[in-house]
Every structure is written in structure tokens, then in C-alpha cells.
């Protein structure tokens, strides 16, 4: 037991010492550099290394290590309940991962050196060497850390989508590896793969493949490599449901098929799953991307859980369940914030169906007031309370730093400045919060929709920058509007509204006109968001 506790404790202080960014590389490498010693040590400790993570003869210590790793992942998410504890949480996550990886290495690599021991029968001829494994990890680490350091905060949604696709593809690869070499995973029952294992494997591959191709499309749409507008195939619902049904039938057939007949079934299963992931995401428009990203997050978790079932690995099952529910809850929050059902988001086509009605109707040009940066600066200075509503346009224009500068100057002049963030602002949950954090806006000044909406009545100025649909009163009044029922900010209650927008031509992602433009107290500031805010800053000087 002493050895175990020291094994568990070992990574702790080390992870605590190094800085977070450096920790990623160091924490994971160091124990492995020492692994020469460690491996020999543990090879003796673990009685049945070859079967450690497999279905039979689970070494209780190994199982315990994976359980501990799972618990660390729970703590990692728990830490995110407040910014103060979040960094510790992230470190717990790293420790959990380290335990899982080291445990696997320790239990699966010593057997290759035991050519004379009782495990000699299990010695593999073609398995990867420790060097190859470390090289593979190093390649991944270099790519991962480079991307993580360089990525702009505005590009977080597409980065997360890209990362999801990797988890999905990794799940497919692991599933296939387990299929091709079931013995290594301990899946053989009387010389063939057990039916339950085959169902788990089939589901894991299918969910992984859907995650992969879906995330690739989400990435392409989010990064502008592909048009964000929905692509609608005729009879898409029939095609999608048919493909899903075919996947389920194939999984069942795969589970029941004899050992010689499984290959075409699993190939067909994989191909169809890749296809359905693609088909599911292409009809979904830009405004629904927060839901899609969360949903794919959820899928990547379920894929990991399915693989955890196949391997009987607690760390993977716990993680999969955590990530799966996390993504599902985020999807739910996003849907609720748009007053849309999950099914209607998945069915897709939002925005496309309305473009005909919205554009064709050609509402008469209504009068609006246009102002200059100097007007805005003057009014802002006079105000007692200003509420800023950032949206995706702020992210596109990279205006968050200029905005913070403006807020700082106003605060120096005694103006109270608050930020109001709608749950679906931006392209992923919490996107605006991260951008404001990047610009060093104190998070105490940043409020959620329901916490601040009652304050607009006392606000002198509502300052809308790059948001549109989330302030549209049509959501409250116009039953025919596609955004009807969506909770929105009551900016019409503010004494004065400034609305930064590139031009009057564009509409929000929902493709609907916004009455806020034409209100008496609204002044439109038609310009690039960053340029406009910088001009206001100059005028405030």
C-alpha cells in the first residue's frame, strides 16, 4: 500500500511547481524519462501485466490507478465552478491523465522484455517499442502545444471543433485496432470476439466516426473555409434517418456475425458513420454553431465511454460519462437560450428557410439616426451607468482590447460600466467571457443575461457591439419571427442605445430585421467595431 500511495502522490508536487504552460510538456515527460527504473520496479509489482487493462484477471492496483485517474478528472471539472479554483482543477486533469498514461505504459511495456519469464508466451514480435511510443507522444505534444500557444482567442471555437475531430478519429482507430487485434485487448471469448464487445466496439467506432466528420464540417464552417449557411439536401431527413437505421442494423449484424464475416460489416459501419456525421452538420447554419460544438463535445465523450466499455477501463468510462454529460448540458443551455428544441437544431436549416421571407418581403426603408464617435463619446461621458453588450461581431473585429480601454477611461470618469453576455453570444458557450478575460476585463463586471436584464431600466446607455439577434425585441413581440421566444436583452428600456454595426445592410444570423435600429433613442454607429471604439477612445481623451 505504501508503494501505491507514493505512486499516486508522485506527480502531485511536480505538477504544482512548474508553470501551467510548461507543465504540459514537463509533467508528462519526466516520469517517462525515469521510466527505465520505474518500469522495472512496477513490472515486479503488478502480477499480471499483460492482462492488466483487459477483461480478465484485472490487477486490482491497476484498476485502482485508473479509478484514481477518473476521480482526478471529476475534480478537474469541479474546479471550474469558480475562476479562483479553476487552475488547480486543470492541474488535477493533467495529473489524472499522467496516472492513466503511466499506468498503461507500466502494465503493457514490461512484458516485452520478459522473454524468459512466465509471460514469455505473450511476448510480441511486432509491437511498437517504447521509443516509438515516446516519439508518437512527442510529435503530438509538439503539435498540440504549438497550436495552443499560437491560437487567437477569437479562434477558440474552431480549435475546439478541430480537437473534437481528433478524439473522434482516435476512437475510430482504437476501435479498429481492437477489432484487428482483439487478443491484445483481452476481448477473445472462445477464440472470437464476444458479442457484447462487438456491440461496444461497433458503437465506439460509429460515434467516433460521427464525431470526426461532424467536427471537420463544424471546423470548416467556423473557420470560414466553408460557407456558414446551411446546405440543404432534398429529402435529407429521410437520408439521415435511413443512414442511422442502417448503422444500428449493421451494428447488430456485426455483433451476431461469425468471425469470418465481420470485416465487410465493420467497414460498411465505419463508412456510413463518417457519412452521417457529414450529413448531420452540413444543414446546420452559423447561428446554431454553439449547439453543434457542444453536441460534438458530448459525442466525443460518448465515444470515449464506448471504448472504455470495450476495454473495461474505469478512467475512460468515467471521463466519457463526464464529457458526454458536459456536452449535453451545454447543448441544452444553448438551446434554451435560443428557445429552440434540440431536435429542431439537429434537423438543421435555421436561417435558410427564412431568407426567402425576410428578403423577399422588402420592408420599406425606415428612418434611423446615425451618429459619430464624438457623439457617442459625449453621451458615454455624461452617463452614470453603461451596459456593454458584446457579440460575435466584436470577436470578428478583435475589438475587445479597444473596448476595455474605452471602459477603463469611462470608469476613470466615474461611469459605472458593466458587461452583459447572452448565453449564445459568439460561436461557442462562454466565448465572449474568454475574449473579455483576454482583454483583462475583471470578471466581476461581466454578467449573465438573467442577472443583468432588470438593470437596463436604470442604465443611461446600452452599448451594443457586434451583437444583433440577442437584443431584438421581435423575440418578445413578433410571433412569426424565427427568433420568437428567445430570451433577449431589454435594451429598449435604456435611455440611450448605441449600436455599432458595419452597415445597415447586414442582418443577424437569424436573418431578421431589428426594431432596435429604428428606435428614437438609438444611434447607429456604422463602422468596423474596432475602428469605431478606437475613435471613441480618442474622443474621450
Amino acid at each position, binding site marked *: 500500500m505504501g508503494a501505491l500511495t507514493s505512486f499516486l502522490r508522485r506527480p502531485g508536487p511536480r505538477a504544482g511547481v512548474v508553470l501551467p504552460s510548461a507543465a504540459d510538456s514537463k509533467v508528462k515527460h519526466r516520469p517517462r524519462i525515469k521510466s527505465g527504473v520505474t518500469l522495472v520496479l512496477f513490472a515486479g509489482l503488478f502480477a499480471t501485466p499483460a492482462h492488466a487493462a483487459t477483461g480478465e484477471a484485472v490487477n486490482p492496483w491497476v484498476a485502482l490507478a485508473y479509478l484514481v485517474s477518473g476521480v482526478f478528472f471529476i475534480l478537474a471539472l469541479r474546479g471550474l465552478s469558480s475562476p479562483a479554483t479553476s487552475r488547480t482543477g486543470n492541474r488535477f486533469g493533467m495529473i489524472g*491523465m499522467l496516472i492513466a498514461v503511466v499506468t498503461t505504459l507500466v502494465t503493457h511495456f514490461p512484458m516485452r522484455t520478459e522473454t524468459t519469464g512466465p509471460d514469455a508466451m505473450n511476448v510480441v514480435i511486432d509491437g511498437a517499442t517504447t521509443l516509438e511510443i515516446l516519439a508518437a507522444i512527442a510529435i503530438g505534444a509538439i503539435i498540440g502545444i504549438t497550436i495552443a500557444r499560437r491560437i487567437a482567442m477569437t479562434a477558440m471555437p474552431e480549435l475546439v471543433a478541430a480537437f473534437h475531430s481528433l478524439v473522434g478519429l482516435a476512437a475510430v482507430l482504437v476501435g479498429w485496432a481492437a477489432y484487428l487485434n482483439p487478443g491484445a485487448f483481452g476481448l477473445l471469448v472462445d477464440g472470437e470476439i464476444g458479442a457484447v464487445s462487438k456491440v461496444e466496439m461497433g458503437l465506439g467506432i460509429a460515434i467516433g466516426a460521427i464525431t470526426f466528420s461532424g467536427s471537420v464540417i463544424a471546423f470548416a464552417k467556423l473557420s470560414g473555409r466553408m460557407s456558414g449557411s446551411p446546405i440543404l439536401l432534398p429529402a435529407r431527413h429521410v437520408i439521415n434517418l435511413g443512414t442511422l437505421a442502417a448503422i444500428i442494423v449493421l451494428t447488430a449484424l456485426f455483433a451476431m456475425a461469425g468471425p469470418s464475416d465481420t470485416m465487410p460489416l465493420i467497414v460498411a459501419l465505419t463508412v456510413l458513420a463518417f457519412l452521417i456525421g457529414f450529413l448531420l452538420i452540413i444543414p446546420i447554419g452559423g447561428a446554431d454553431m454553439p449547439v453543434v460544438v457542444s453536441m460534438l463535445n458530448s459525442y466525443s465523450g460518448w465515444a470515449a465511454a464506448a471504448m472504455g466499455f470495450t476495454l473495461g477501463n474505469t478512467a*475512460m468510462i468515467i471521463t466519457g460519462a463526464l464529457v458526454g454529460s458536459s456536452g449535453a448540458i451545454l447543448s441544452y443551455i444553448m438551446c434554451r437560450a435560443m428557445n429552440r428544441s434540440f431536435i429542431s437544431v439537429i434537423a438543421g436549416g435555421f436561417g435558410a428557410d427564412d431568407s426567402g421571407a425576410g428578403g423577399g418581403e422588402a420592408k420599406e426603408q425606415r428612418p434611423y439616426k446615425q451618429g459619430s464617435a464624438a457623439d457617442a463619446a459625449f453621451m458615454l461621458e455624461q452617463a452614470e451607468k453603461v451596459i456593454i453588450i458584446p457579440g460575435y461581431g466584436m470577436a470578428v473585429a478583435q475589438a475587445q482590447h479597444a473596448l476595455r480601454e474605452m471602459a477603463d477611461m469611462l470608469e476613470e470618469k466615474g461611469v459605472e460600466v458593466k458587461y452583459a453576455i447572452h448565453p449564445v453570444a459568439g460561436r461557442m458557450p462562454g466565448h465572449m467571457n474568454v475574449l473579455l478575460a483576454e482583454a*483583462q476585463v475583471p470578471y466581476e463586471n461581466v454578467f449573465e443575461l438573467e442577472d443583468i436584464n432588470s438593470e437596463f431600466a436604470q442604465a443611461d446607455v446600452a452599448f451594443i457591439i457586434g451583437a444583433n439577434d440577442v437584443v431584438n425585441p421581435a423575440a418578445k413581440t413578433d410571433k412569426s419571427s424565427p427568433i420568437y421566444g428567445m430570451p433577449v436583452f431589454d435594451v429598449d428600456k435604456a435611455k440611450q442605445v448605441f449600436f455599432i454595426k458595419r452597415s445597415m445592410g447586414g442582418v443577424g444570423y437569424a436573418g431578421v430585421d431589428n426594431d432596435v435600429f429604428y428606435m428614437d433613442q438609438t444611434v447607429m454607429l456604422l463602422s468596423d467595431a474596432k475602428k469605431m471604439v478606437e475613435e471613441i477612445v480618442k474622443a474621450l481623451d
Partner: protein
Amino acid sequence: MDFISILSIFVLACFVGYYVVWSVTPALHTPLMAVTNAVSSVIIVGALIAAAAADVPGAKWLGLLGIVLASVNIFGGFAVTARMLAMYKKKEKK
């Protein structure tokens, strides 16, 4: 482990996940996605097993490729989460 014990762990973990995730502050939803992404790459365990014990040559390369992909995610995911969370820290001092 038999199927029922695995299923029990899974179902209980779903409930744990449900309550833990609801307690996450909305301001940290983006870091939440980044970190869940990183931890879901625990699938690297499967890739390691595949690469280590490949009697079938193809399986080894699938495993190694899986290791690379999962590592990108692990290192990238934790690093980018750490980077984001560090931004929330600076403001605390202010």
C-alpha cells in the same frame, strides 16, 4: 470486469457529471469545453495498448497514429485551457 459493474460505474459517473457540470460557472464554459476535450483523450490508453501489443502489423500503426492524435489533444487541450485560465487570473489581481 463484468458488464454490469462497468455499467454501474458509467451510470453513476453520468450523474456525477450532471451535477458537476451544472456547478460550472457560465463564464468558464469555453475552458470547460477545452478541458473536457483534453480529458476525453484518455482514449490514448486504448491507443497505447494497441501499439504496445500488436501481433497484427496494421494494428500497431493504428495505435501509434491514435497516440499522436490523442497527444495533440491532451497537450493542446490542457495548454490552451491553462492559457485561458491564466487570463482570468490576471484580473483577480487588479
